[in-house]
């Protein structure tokens, strides 16, 4: 172990930076879970796969996997848009027909879609880890942005943090100050009542999926760049952890997802750094289970509705 105080503290700082980066990525994914859950009370298990899709699409477009290599910015834009579309399609094909079915059916469908998409990616891109070709990525991303002592913060980390913060602020603005946001909140309160008030529920749900999946896609691209690794099973673990973050923050709450993501990212990095690196994933699971058992409403969630019927 590092011995001097300076080393200890710079290690701590470095881990903190790593944790915040990871956390902001989790937050971006978690928002997708939380928005969908808030609106239609469904854990969209396939959300992790959308994130994976974002990474793969941007990789493919940039590296010319589909025949043409596009400029970075264009490729990323297209990837995010396709992800948003994929989210909408997912809802349209898999979940919408089950709106009136028991929740269990929708949940199982979500798992089925997750398996399907993961294997589809395996079929298209193969199981290997893919890396973005260095040549097409803006070079500055890999340069250190800040360096004090041993602690290095790369531009990529800065970009990830900034992107996450900006997107979250925009999202909050959308949810609180637009017609769409108002409709979303109305549906979250009471779907039937919202429909009676003239809210087009299906369309709002589609927009919700589009927004959530778009953010998931952004997270996928950022992760693909950050670790320089894109592979079909990446969505599974990240998805679960992001879900844990959403639960921790209180599912259904967007600020909760942000906070949960941050906490989870830090917990994971510090857990791996200070406790045991092989139980890094376990920490996420353990937090998730504990939160569900002890405080299912999470940090910011509404208290879970009374289990009793209303008579």
């Amino acid at each position, binding site marked *: 172990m590092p011995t001097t105080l300076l080393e200890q503290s710079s290690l701590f700082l470095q881990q903190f930076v790593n944790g915040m980066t990871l956390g902001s990525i989790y937050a971006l994914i978690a928002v997708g879970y939380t928005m969908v859950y808030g609106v239609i009370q*469904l*854990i969209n298990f396939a959300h992790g796969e959308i994130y994976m899709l974002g990474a793969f699409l941007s990789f493919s477009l940039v590296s010319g996997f589909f025949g043409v290599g596009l400029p970075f910015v264009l490729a990323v834009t297209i990837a995010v848009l396709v992800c948003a579309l994929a989210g909408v399609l997912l809802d349209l094909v*898999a979940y919408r*027909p*089950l709106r009136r*079915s028991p*929740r*269990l*059916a*929708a*949940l*199982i*469908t979500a*798992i*089925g*879609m*997750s*398996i*399907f*998409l*993961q*294997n*589809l990616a*395996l*079929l298209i891109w*193969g*199981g290997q880890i893919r890396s973005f070709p260095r040549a097409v990525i803006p070079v500055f991303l890999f340069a250190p942005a800040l360096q004090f002592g041993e602690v290095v913060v790369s531009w990529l980390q800065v970009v990830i943090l900034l992107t996450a913060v900006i997107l979250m602020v925009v999202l909050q603005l959308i949810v609180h100050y637009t017609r769409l946001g108002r409709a979303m909140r109305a549906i979250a309160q009471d779907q039937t009542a919202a429909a009676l008030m003239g809210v087009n529920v299906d369309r709002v749900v589609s927009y919700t999926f589009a927004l959530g999946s778009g953010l998931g896609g952004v997270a996928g691209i950022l992760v693909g760049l950050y670790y320089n690794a894109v592979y079909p099973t990446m969505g*599974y673990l990240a998805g*679960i952890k992001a*879900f*844990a973050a959403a*639960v921790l923050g209180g599912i259904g709450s967007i600020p909760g997802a942000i906070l949960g993501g941050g906490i989870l990212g830090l917990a994971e990095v510090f857990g791996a750094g200070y406790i*045991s690196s*092989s*139980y890094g*994933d*376990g920490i996420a*699971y*353990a937090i*998730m*289970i504990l939160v*569900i*058992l002890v405080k*299912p409403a999470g940090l910011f969630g509404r208290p879970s509705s009374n*289990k*009793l*019927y209303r008579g």
Partner: protein
Amino acid sequence: MHLDDRLFHDKKLYLPLLIVVLILPWLPLGQAGPYVIRIATLTLLYMVLAQGLNVVPGFTGLLDLGYVGFFGIGAYTAALLTIHYHWSLWLILPLAALNGALWGVLRGAPSLRLTDDYFAIVTFGFSELIILVIKNELWLTRGPMGIPGIARPELFGVVLDQPWQTYYLILFLLLLVLWVVVRIRNSRLGRAWFAIREDEIAAECVGINVARYKIIAFALSAAIGALAGAFYARWFRFVHPDMFKFWESILILCLIVLGGMGSISGALLGALLLIPLTEVLRIILPSEFSSARYLLFGLLIVVMMRWRPAGLLPVERE
């Protein structure tokens, strides 16, 4: 009476099936014989697992995404007891089942109050933690080195080393499990489970101790999973954490979704269709596609939920 139960009470239905299953190892299958028997053994094993899983989501209506954890616990219990103490399979089977039941109760007791999705997530997390422990605690489980060289099953001192012998062994276990599950389903206990699945509050109001019956369901389900695991370890003669991936839980779930949740014969049918199918697909699909053949399973789940949520052999009361 359940439509489902006709399979178990109507001689005309079950006798031919039983005969086919019983004489299967002696059918003239030529050189493919041992291979077919192995696949049949695997199918029967998954039938046992499907029956076990069915108890929780099928009977009590709680989605269990971590069933493979109990399968793993059973397999590792059997593997460790065999490697270190060389105990007989017949001693190990009940011990493994007990150990499984213990962990089933430990997992279930705190999550009694949870509803659908949160329960599913907790079960998932729990089994992932179990597998993580198995992977990392080298001194106990040898972690990713696996435990090779486990002794074969034996009966009265006779080592069962022929494929047909293990086939009959798992067949025996399956019949045992079926016997228990069918009996319980049609009893006061099974009725209580169905009541809980339908309406927990109404169940409580007619005097059913919901917590207790849920716990019994968890214990029974986990015990069956662990029983299958114990057999699996002795049959495979090697256990490794990679054998108990999350995917296995989904596969078992797939079996009961296909057959119909809560339907005992449905779970059998699901395994009968899907387990050989995975083998057939492996053979007929080219290599690049065969690794992605689980795509079909995902699709299957989605399609079933969309068009036949009650499964191929739905549970219906006549």
